[in-house]
């Protein structure tokens, strides 16, 4: 059992943690929730030996524990499963699991391959992963990699497991599988600290809940005392009865009254796909998206949602079928031309495709729209108008005012980074916005602000295609939901038909919806 006793930590006068006390016991799962910046990461860094508290102490099984280095934590049996996984994609599962103490023939540097495979199989069995130990990690899905990380912790005989946003990159089915493994480990006596923004998961999984706000414990107790609403209220310090803003009715009702699942034919749809196919990826995708409409795309991991977005945007060439923007066919291949036609694409892969992490905030925001501010034969930039435009859009997305325009994006929190990506696309004034998991891994406050922005855009006449693994937000935000399964659109639901069970069933393929 681990106890935190009155942990306090400041960074140069700013108090990040104040008098934080709670305990996590063996055989129980503790959910740690709070907005980004509430102090969760700092607390875990203290637990892991990366930081030292200014005051307070930690005790393990009653004995004082003051780690000075991450390996102290490892030696004490504490294992972290991070948001960005620490696996070597080019090495096999077995090598990843036992990298630090590979079994060797005595007195030689040679690895005992048989023993390695046997030990790996034991560990994989414990997490229920049926994969050959020799499989390279790069061939595993995100969920499987997570299980490998947990197996790694088990291999080190950890008794305390810390999971930081484990489901942020998982589909529904993979998340369920992870929860099953965690339940089993709990039954075997593992203590778990589970950090997540997915409050539903926390309620589903945890025995105890600790809510952090501004570095203090805002609420703690057994799960029974909490509901999602209460957790949100504690996290933000005020009651957020409406995470999802109420939308203007007009945009939503017009299409539903005009006919089933198709918007008013008066003006061409903002985006239309006609029998779009890419072999092995998506098949026969047809839908249309009206101006002012928010259409959600649900589905499990691997159903082809992100792939569809990439095809529409032109990052993956479209083999067959037609894509129309405002009734005109899109340019093939180059995303560049489609952007000029008014298409915008917020990628799920912020780090690798969304932002230049080392570059300044302002440069990132301006990137898509630079062309409009270029003047003269040398295409010199008009610094004045550019700065003005960036400033305006910063306001619009409510980027943290503390962030300086010239600060590198990597210094921002996840939520603010996502706002920068949004700002970048808003500045281009797109007619159609494709959002792929725009709220992944960001806190409730920022999520809510992003929802409002999406509504604002729709109200101004943009069409929004919204891909998400969180059914809650699809239900709360969209006018229609398309459900993808195995590369096809398996079902579609209008707002008045929204039903959690049926959508889930359509996504998982257990039941065919009549609403196609």
């Amino acid at each position: 059992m681990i106890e935190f006793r009155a942990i306090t930590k400041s960074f140069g006068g700013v108090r990040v943690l104040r008098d934080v006390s709670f305990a996590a016991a063996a055989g129980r799962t503790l959910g740690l929730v709070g907005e980004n910046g509430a102090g969760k990461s700092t607390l875990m860094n203290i637990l892991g030996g990366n930081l030292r508290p200014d005051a307070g102490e930690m005790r393990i099984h009653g004995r004082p524990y003051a780690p000075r280095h991450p390996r102290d934590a490892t030696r004490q049996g504490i294992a972290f499963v991070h948001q960005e996984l620490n696996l070597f994609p080019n090495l096999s599962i077995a090598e990843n699991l036992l990298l630090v103490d590979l079994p060797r023939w005595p007195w030689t540097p040679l690895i005992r391959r048989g023993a390695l495979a046997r030990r790996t199989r034991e560990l994989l069995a414990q997490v229920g992963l049926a994969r050959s130990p020799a499989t390279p990690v790069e061939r595993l899905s995100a969920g499987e990699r997570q299980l490998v990380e947990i197996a790694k912790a088990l291999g080190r005989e950890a008794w305390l497991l810390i999971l930081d946003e484990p489901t942020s990159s998982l589909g529904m089915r993979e998340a369920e599988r992870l929860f099953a493994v965690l339940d089993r480990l709990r039954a075997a006596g593992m203590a778990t600290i589970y950090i997540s923004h997915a409050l539903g998961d926390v309620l589903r999984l945890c025995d105890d809940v600790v809510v952090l706000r501004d570095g203090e414990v805002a609420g703690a107790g057994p799960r029974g005392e909490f509901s999602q609403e209460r957790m949100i209220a504690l996290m933000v310090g005020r009651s957020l009865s409406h995470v999802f803003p109420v939308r203007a009715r007009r945009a939503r009702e017009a299409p539903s009254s005009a006919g089933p699942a198709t918007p008013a034919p008066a003006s061409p749809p903002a985006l239309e796909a006609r029998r779009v196919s890419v072999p092995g990826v998506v098949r026969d995708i047809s839908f249309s998206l009206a101006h002012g409409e928010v259409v959600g795309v649900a589905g499990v991991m691997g159903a082809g949602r992100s792939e569809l977005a990439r095809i529409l945007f032109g990052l993956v060439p479209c083999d067959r079928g037609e894509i129309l923007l405002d009734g005109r066919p899109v340019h093939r291949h180059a995303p560049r031309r489609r952007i000029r036609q008014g298409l915008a694409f917020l990628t799920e892969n912020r780090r690798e495709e969304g932002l230049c992490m080392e570059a300044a905030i302002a440069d990132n925001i301006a990137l898509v729209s630079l062309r409009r501010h270029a003047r003269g034969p040398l295409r010199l930039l008009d610094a004045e108008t550019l700065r003005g435009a960036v400033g305006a859009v910063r306001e619009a997305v409510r980027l943290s005012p503390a962030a300086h325009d010239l600060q590198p994006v990597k210094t921002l929190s996840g939520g603010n980074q996502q706002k920068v990506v949004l700002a970048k696309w808003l500045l281009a004034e797109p007619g159609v916005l494709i959002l792929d998991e725009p709220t992944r891994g960001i806190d409730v406050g920022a999520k809510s602000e992003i929802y409002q922005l999406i509504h604002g855009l729709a109200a101004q006449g943009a069409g929004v295609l919204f891909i998400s693994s969180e059914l809650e937000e699809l239900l709360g935000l969209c006018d229609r939901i398309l459900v993808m399964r195995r590369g096809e659109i398996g079902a579609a639901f209008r707002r008045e038909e929204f039903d959690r069970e049926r959508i889930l069933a359509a996504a998982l393929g257990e039941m065919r919806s009549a609403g196609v």
Partner: protein
Amino acid sequence: MAAVADSHRRARTPLLRVLRSEYFVLLLSAAYCAACAPFTPDFATGGNIANVLATLLPLFVAALGQTVVLITGGIDLSAMSIVALASIAGAAVMSGEQGLLAGSPSAVPAALLAMALVGAAAGALNGVAIACLRLPPFIVTLTSMMFFSGLAIALTQSRNIGALPAAFNALGGSTWLTLAIAIVAGAGVHVMLARSLWGRWLYAVGHNPRVARVSGVPVPGVVIGAYVASGVLAAAASVLYTGQAESGSPVLAQRLLLDIICATVIGGASLFGGRGGVLGTLFGALFLKLIDNSLNLMGRSHFSIMMVKGAVILGAAVLDMARSRLEEK
């Protein structure tokens, strides 16, 4: 995360701001001068400063091209062979002995044009191979270095071309004219990097080509542009080097490649792309030339100069690493 942003703001004290900027290298140069002057005969004389300037400027112009390419995350190993190729092309046009336009008043402008065209064509070749065939810049420019060098030597049968017009020689020989050319080149590149659409795209491609592509940047065009610019700037450097030596040579400046890359990297350009600027490169070239010059004045042998230069560059790299860590703290 909020804490990181806070500490970042606090780090903007004047000292740190200097440490983080390209002026750091200038400070380093000044410190080096101060440390060396007492031991180095005739270091701080007007004549010597003119010397440093005369040798610094061609290096600076050549390093400008390398800066542009490094910003995209590439590298141009063929820069010096483009210098040589342009050198013999220009000399072949205007040489008083065997030039195509020997003695004609239009010889010098025609030669300059020919040099620029050779530079641009060679750069375009590199750029197209890298951007369109998706080959790694290192391999492309390594092979094109061999090709251009071989071509230059084959075309001239390894012989120099002399008897260049005096007006041309002055471009490299007169420090004032050289200075003027370097200022024009430096200012031009600076404006393009800092103020133009292309410059911004260049940095974006260097930071992350995938992000740039997704954001609608014409990545291949930007990359080809960078290599063409590198080729043209190599040709400009070739004008200075050729004028200085008063003869076109197929092996001109053959061994300066590492000096150029060093100057650029000391000046703050990153081999991983996304960083670099004209001012930094200027200071980097200055630093390198000061080391060369001072050790030369001290009468050190070529080999000890190389050793000391290596150590100093390593030291500068370590300092650079330290200050970027400091920046992140």
